[in-house]
């Protein structure tokens, strides 16, 4: 890697977010300066990640590199690793984070007390730093530390909105997260004990030796199981997802968008890295973990939608739909092929762009209905806030998998990836059933917001949506169509990234 500027980007972007988190509380709290500062910092990270992606795909040389922290060589030092997949995910995470903050700029002002807005910015910056670190790190214990930072920041942005309900939701989220991270920590210690390394690639070679010589297979299976379950709890796979609707449904709109779109993805990405880089897909197959996550993924796709069907509150409905979408990602990972993992990564990107759009538009619509969150209260709100209505419709189409919308691209790639696998019938059946279930709750929501309702219209007390809100929705819609219509180059890029993960 000759381009020294691109070489330093992974470290610089994590460090920039950390520094911003530290200086945000010192910035005077006038004109919402701390929030603007955070947005600029996230924007800079986005630009840097885009440049890194450009440099990695155009260098023509080796397309992934290791960055030794403090210049200590491999088995001893701490490392970051960046390839096309990491760069593209860092770009998507920062863009989605930025849009989530911008779109909910005014609702954040209403929901969070002025004295707490500084703290909210600190938490968002820390969360971005943790996500970037989870994306780039090549060291399993560093990953654990950032998983914990992610947990604290994520629970705090639920509790930052004043109220009894959010405190309860945050505590519930925290307890489940702590169970998850406890299991992850035990598993990492077991793995360190078995392999003698914490760097992922060194662990990989040690695990290969163990598997070939058939030594310590039982502890290896236990640690893989613990780490998968631990991270699955944190990424809200179905049997472990009971905390999610409370946390995502009760928090402020910006927090819901960030939690659903990004925080879950950081943990899923960690599982992908552990599967591909630490264990290797053959070992995962030999230990049967691919079947386990495939079954859990399918279960999550169905049950997430079934729970969403029963919800009357629009934000809780969208939150349960996240559980279903996480199921898609795990199902694609369970195919245990490079194409399957690439499809899972594409769905991560799609969901990271669509879910913040859905939460932002749901926030805009319930604002138009006078802060009511029940689905029926939103009747006719499409005509009050058109951009929010369009966002909800596009998001619903995307979740159902209507062609030309983002969700179609990832569903198609999951299906294409399944053709080489033994599970092909199951994948097609699960995708079909889940799409129908998605339609069963998204279509009524769209019908409700588009139903003319003259009585309610006169009673709407909302302030008009700001220009910033409309601009953000426009950007979200453009992203959605871009992913839906031109996903093939992106998929090829991701496949290259997965190959060098």
């Amino acid at each position: 890697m000759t381009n020294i500027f691109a070489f330093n980007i992974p470290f610089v972007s994590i460090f920039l977010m950390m520094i911003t988190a530290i200086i945000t509380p010192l910035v005077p709290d006038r004109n919402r300066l701390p929030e603007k500062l955070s947005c600029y910092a996230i924007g800079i990270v986005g630009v840097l990640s885009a440049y890194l992606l450009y440099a990695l795909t155009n260098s023509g040389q080796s397309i992934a590199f290791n960055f030794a922290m403090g210049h200590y060589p491999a088995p001893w030092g701490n490392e970051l690793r960046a390839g096309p997949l990491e760069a593209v995910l860092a770009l998507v995470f920062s863009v989605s984070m930025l849009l989530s903050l911008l779109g909910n700029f005014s609702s954040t002002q209403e929901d969070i007390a002025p004295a707490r807005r500084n703290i909210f910015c600190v938490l968002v910056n820390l969360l971005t730093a943790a996500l970037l670190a989870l994306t780039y790190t090549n060291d399993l214990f560093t990953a654990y530390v950032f998983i914990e930072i992610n947990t604290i920041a994520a629970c705090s942005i639920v509790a930052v909105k004043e109220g009894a309900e959010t405190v309860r939701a945050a505590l519930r989220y925290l307890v489940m997260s702590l169970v998850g991270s406890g299991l992850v920590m035990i598993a990492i210690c077991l793995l360190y004990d078995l392999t003698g390394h914490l760097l992922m690639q060194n662990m990989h070679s040690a695990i290969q030796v163990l598997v070939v010589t058939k030594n310590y297979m039982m502890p290896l299976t236990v640690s893989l199981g613990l780490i998968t379950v631990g991270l699955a709890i944190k990424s809200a796979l179905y049997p472990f997802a009971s905390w999610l609707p409370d946390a995502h449904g009760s928090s402020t709109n910006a927090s819901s968008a960030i939690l659903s779109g990004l925080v879950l993805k950081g943990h899923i990405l960690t599982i992908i890295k552990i599967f591909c880089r630490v264990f290797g897909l053959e070992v995962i197959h030999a230990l049967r973990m691919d079947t386990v996550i495939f079954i859990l993924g399918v279960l999550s796709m169905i049950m997430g939608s079934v729970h969403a069907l029963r919800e009357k509150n629009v934000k809780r409905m969208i939150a349960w739909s996240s559980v279903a979408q996480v199921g898609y990602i795990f199902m694609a990972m369970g195919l245990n092929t490079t194409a399957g993992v690439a499809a899972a990564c594409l769905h991560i990107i799609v969901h990271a762009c669509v879910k913040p759009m859905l939460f932002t538009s749901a926030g805009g619509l319930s604002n138009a209905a006078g802060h009511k969150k029940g689905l029926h209260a939103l009747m006719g709100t499409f005509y009050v806030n058109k951009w929010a209505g369009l966002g909800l419709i596009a998001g619903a189409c995307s979740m159902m998998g209507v062609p030309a919308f983002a969700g179609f691209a990832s569903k198609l790639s999951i299906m294409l990836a399944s053709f080489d696998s033994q599970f092909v019938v199951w994948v097609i059946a699960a995708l079909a059933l889940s799409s129908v279930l998605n339609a069963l709750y998204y279509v009524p929501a769209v019908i409700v917001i588009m139903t003319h309702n003259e009585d309610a219209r006169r009673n709407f007390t909302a302030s008009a949506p700001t220009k910033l809100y409309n601009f953000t929705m426009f950007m979200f819609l453009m992203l959605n169509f871009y992913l839906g219509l031109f996903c093939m180059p992106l998929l090829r890029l991701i496949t290259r990234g997965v190959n060098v993960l």
Partner: protein
Amino acid sequence: MLEKLLLNHYEAAAVILSGIGLTNLLLQRNLIKKIIGLNIMDTAVYLFLAAKGYVEGRAAPILIQAEGGGWVTNPDVYVNPVPAGLVLTGIVVSVSVTAFALALTLRLYEHYGTLNIDEALMKMTEQQEDIEAKISQAEEDVLA
């Protein structure tokens, strides 16, 4: 089987302790007890790491002065410093998480007057039902 267990008694103790901690964290209703469970689980992991990091007859990884002057640089004299580093990092993480959980517990107690998270949910539902009942009562009054 029993021989192996006796040979690895530190690890066996760590596994039992972490099981106790995890069960408490999951099943206790009282939040303070949950947090104590969390700490037991974390401490069990530190015990495991400390037991694994200790090699009999080796010194702590701080340079020892050799008899003829100079330092002993042979790595076989010292234990691996990484497990101790992991324990330290783990303690820092566990302290901050515990502090955060206790702070949230305090807020929950201020809002609901209980440390039980299920009871808090019941109280919240009751409050909401009260409010809804009052609203419908008011609407009926207006109509009458």
